[in-house]
């Protein structure tokens, strides 16, 4: 049985889909078999980020409704043979499926794959309940903003209430020049408030936008800072101990930053 990991946030636009695409690709790069499950029914875009949108014939709702077999709705990635996507339906809404159906679907997928990554819609309604139904592990994405952290906190509470005990935190879009000026929300404060384990910190990186538009996740490009940060996250998911950030004021800025994103100093 594979692991079902839901990627969630509460607030929209903080990088769930970007994170699902990159972690999925990263796990596939490490030789794992992976399926990306787009649970954002009605607003799908994981297919676009993966550059697979023109291959969609069947989707998640078709599988749940028995219109097609599970395998027919799995789209094989164009670069990695062990990476698949099951797209969301675009013309239906979140009520087209229920949590029991999602539980069954993710269970069936976990029989076939090492990792099932579920890209969760924003909000705490039906779509959220669907997305977490079959998960046995969860990742909460936030940006260093008070409103995003507040929503993340709400989500952690809901995940815990649902039995997902140890969500892990990704802080996305950390702006390097704001770190330098000391204007950014302190990472330690965020981790302190949310009181969950930090899985990684992703810098704000225009390469993400470029790669998203190209349909090629940033993790596959060694020039991308964010891609490097996602690589470290993938290693941590696989249980490797990659060094963490340390906001020690005694350290120089570059050392701090290098540490923040888990780079080794030359």
């Amino acid at each position, binding site marked *: 049985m594979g692991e079902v990991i839901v990627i969630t946030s509460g607030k929209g636009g903080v990088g769930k889909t970007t994170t699902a695409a990159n972690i999925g690709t990263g796990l596939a790069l490490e030789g794992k078999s992976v399926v990306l499950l787009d649970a954002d029914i009605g607003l799908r875009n994981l297919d676009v980020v993966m550059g697979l949108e023109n291959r969609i014939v069947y989707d998640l709702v078709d599988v749940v409704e028995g219109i097609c077999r599970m395998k027919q709705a799995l789209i094989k990635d164009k670069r990695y043979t062990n990476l698949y996507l099951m797209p969301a339906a675009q013309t239906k809404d979140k009520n087209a499926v229920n949590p029991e159906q999602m539980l069954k679907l993710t269970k069936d997928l976990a029989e076939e794959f090492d990792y099932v990554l579920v890209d969760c819609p924003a909000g705490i309604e039906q779509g959220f309940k669907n997305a977490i139904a079959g998960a046995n592990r969860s990742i909460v994405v936030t940006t260093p903003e008070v409103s995003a952290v507040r929503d993340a906190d*709400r989500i952690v509470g809901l995940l815990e209430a649902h039995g997902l005990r140890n969500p892990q935190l990704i802080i996305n879009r950390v702006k390097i020049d704001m770190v330098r000026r000391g204007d950014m929300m302190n990472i330690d404060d965020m981790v302190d408030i949310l*009181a969950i384990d930090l899985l990684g910190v992703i810098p704000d990186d225009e390469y993400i936008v470029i790669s998203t538009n190209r349909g090629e996740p940033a993790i596959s490009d060694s020039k991308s800072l964010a891609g490097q940060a996602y690589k470290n996250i993938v290693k941590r998911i696989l249980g490797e101990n990659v060094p963490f950030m340390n906001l020690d004021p005694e350290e120089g800025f570059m050392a701090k930053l290098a540490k923040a994103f888990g780079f080794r100093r030359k």
Partner: protein
Amino acid sequence: MKDNAIVFKGTKEGLYIVLKEEMDFEDILQQLEEKIKPSKKFFEGAKITNLKGKRLTPKEFEELVGVLENQYDMEYLGDYESLYSYVNGVKEEDKNRLNQVQITNQNNGQEEKAFFVKGTVRSGQLIKSDGNIIILGDVNPGAYLEAVGSIMVMGNMRGIAHSGTQGDYNTFIAAFRLEPMQLRIGDIITRSPDGKKYKSEVPEMAVVRRGMIIVEPIWGRNS
């Protein structure tokens, strides 16, 4: 029902009193006594900024203020003229945000119960108890605590805490680090100042004095 003939409400500047429209003045005076007497010490020195609701005649006004100031050591700020030129133009804000609770003395000599919660109380979560609440962990912004009795947070209290929800001013809200969005004791409300975030350095507790919520260190205070 004579119960809510008068209601005290707290603002940053002080208390105001809402007088129920259809009540006789005699009933109002009587209720004032019933409400304040048992909680007299909480009101000593309180500043009354306003009277709302039933419009009083000048004579009634004088009598009421006389009672407040002489019997209960409160202070009424303002005069009859400014009161009614002001009240008429103002809508009763915050009406729904407050429970209009009665002041009663509670738990005197009675057994008290406490509700324990271990772990972080997160945004959107509400912990309610008809006794006291003790949190072994942090209370995050956007989380709510509501206790008929007192509240103790063994961690950071950054949310909204309401003690004495049935009007007991004897209750308190204490925390290892008290950095709340808002505190309510009985029907008195206080909130954190806007702008720069308040950082608590020592364990503190919020209590009612002079009709206002004040925050003071739990240890090392004189009283």
